[in-house]
């Protein structure tokens, strides 16, 4: 279980998060929705270690998570994607995938020069997994293209692939469907369902309500830096407060 308890964070006088508590269980997809500026991405940045909260705790499987250390959060098994995909643009798709490999002995200078055989073996294993993963994501034919030359949707898929190379226990996904064409969205929904069935923790920020309804088991609604509602997608849809602040009324009612 990944939980963030009573998180507060201010930027100067602006209170971005005011005592937010959320929980996400393994084998479930947890949605975070809310209007722009409600604190969704900020919360993800706190969990991911990009921001240090003013107060509050983070735990994964009962163990406290380091605050403000993205590298150590990642090592603890939490992977994340960004709203605007982060990639090494001047490396190929395949090289980006290999960069997702966890604990690569070939990245240690001593092993690199003293144990070339071990480095080669791990590189070969990682290459095999990267090849399989790219095929699964439908990017197999792009392996040797520069990552920067991919379309926005493909870049989002690639960042997912990089994450999955490290086999994370939890995934934090910031708007994976934004600006992505319907076919790729379907592909992502299928992928998310598979990842959930593998028992991973998934936290998803998304404005695409169809996707939220399709994949989320539980949804937290944020507004003004606070959780204003939580429940199943169906419960959230009928929640008056949420309709007022975020979802709005259908035009014909």
């Amino acid at each position, binding site marked *: 279980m990944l939980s963030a308890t009573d998180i507060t964070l201010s930027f100067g006088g602006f209170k971005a998060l005011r005592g937010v508590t959320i929980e996400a269980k393994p084998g479930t997809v947890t949605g975070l929705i809310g209007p722009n500026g409600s604190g969704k991405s900020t919360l993800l940045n706190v969990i991911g270690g990009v921001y240090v909260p003013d107060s509050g705790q983070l735990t994964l499987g009962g163990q406290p998570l380091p605050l403000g250390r993205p*590298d150590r959060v990642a090592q603890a098994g939490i992977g994340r994607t960004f709203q605007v995909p982060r990639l090494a643009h*001047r490396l190929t798709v395949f090289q980006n995938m290999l*960069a997702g490999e966890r604990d*690569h002995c070939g*990245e240690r200078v001593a092993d*690199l020069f003293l144990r070339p055989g071990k480095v080669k073996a791990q590189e070969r294993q990682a290459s095999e997994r990267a090849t399989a993963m790219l095929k699964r994501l439908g990017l197999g034919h792009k392996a040797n293209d520069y990552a920067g030359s991919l379309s926005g949707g493909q870049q989002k898929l690639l960042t997912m692939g990089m994450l999955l190379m490290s086999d994370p226990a939890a995934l934090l996904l910031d708007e994976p469907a934004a600006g992505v064409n319907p076919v790729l969205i379907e592909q992502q929904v299928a992928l998310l369902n598979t990842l959930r069935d593998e028992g991973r923790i998934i936290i998803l920020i998304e404005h695409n309500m169809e996707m939220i309804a399709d994949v989320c088991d539980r949804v937290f609604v944020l507004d003004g830096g606070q959780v204003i509602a939580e429940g199943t997608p169906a419960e959230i849809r009928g929640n008056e407060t949420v309709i007022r602040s975020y979802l709005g009324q259908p035009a014909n009612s």
Partner: protein
Amino acid sequence: MLDFAIYSITIIAVWSVLALSLNIQFGMTGLVNFGQILPFALGSYAAGISASLGYPWWIGALAGLIAAPLIALLVIMPAQRLAQDYWALITLGAAEIFRLTVLNAPALTGGADGLVVPRFIDPTLAMSVALAVLAVTFLLAQRISSSPYGRMLRVLREDEILASTLGRSPIRYQASVSVIAWMMAAAAGVTYAHITGYVAPSSFTVTETFIIWTAVILGGPGRNIGVIFGAAIIQLLGVSSRFVAQWIDLPPDLIANLRLASFGLVLVLMFLYRPQGLIPEAKQVHDAERN
């Protein structure tokens, strides 16, 4: 003419080592080091001071190769908490501090007069040593470039936050690559001191760092063979300007200044029209058949 060729190859080899050392920092990792002449100076002065104290050459070489990585870690320690832009200022400042210290501590360093270092008597030997140092440096740089380590250095160059969300601590990579690069430059410095037989602060100014940068930008940041090519062109331009001075009757100091101005022009033109350099970084193509 043969003497001149041997001299040119020797000088090109020394500057190629410097270009490679900047390349693994800047070309691969994106670290803007405006003080790359500092480890070169450390190596030279290690050779010079140990010679002046009467120690054999290898003590000086060892001292240079130990001092450079230690100073590297000291210099980048404050950079850990700063954005990458500050690396430029910190490294530039460190190199100048060292030069000014050397200038003002004549008891140990000879001050502005410098120090005399035992010289290679045979120019062919000097060339061979310089080429050997270059060969070792090149092989190390190539190994780094094509390795998973080099790949992560490039990820850092492209996006530090990406590297940290992949579970890597950026400063660890930046520190290790700096240590390797500074040892390379120190080796070049030791070699240089024994080639010229003399070290003085005037050889280690900001201008020299700028010449290394010109070689890297011209040759191709991120490409080892490219920056050697760049260093060769820049050094050949440098030595040939003497002949130009003989042909067209201009005062030598004007020629020297024109030479520097031409390096500046090279930088501006490269940034504008060919930022990838003459021999750009190669795409690392994955051959699925090989697996």
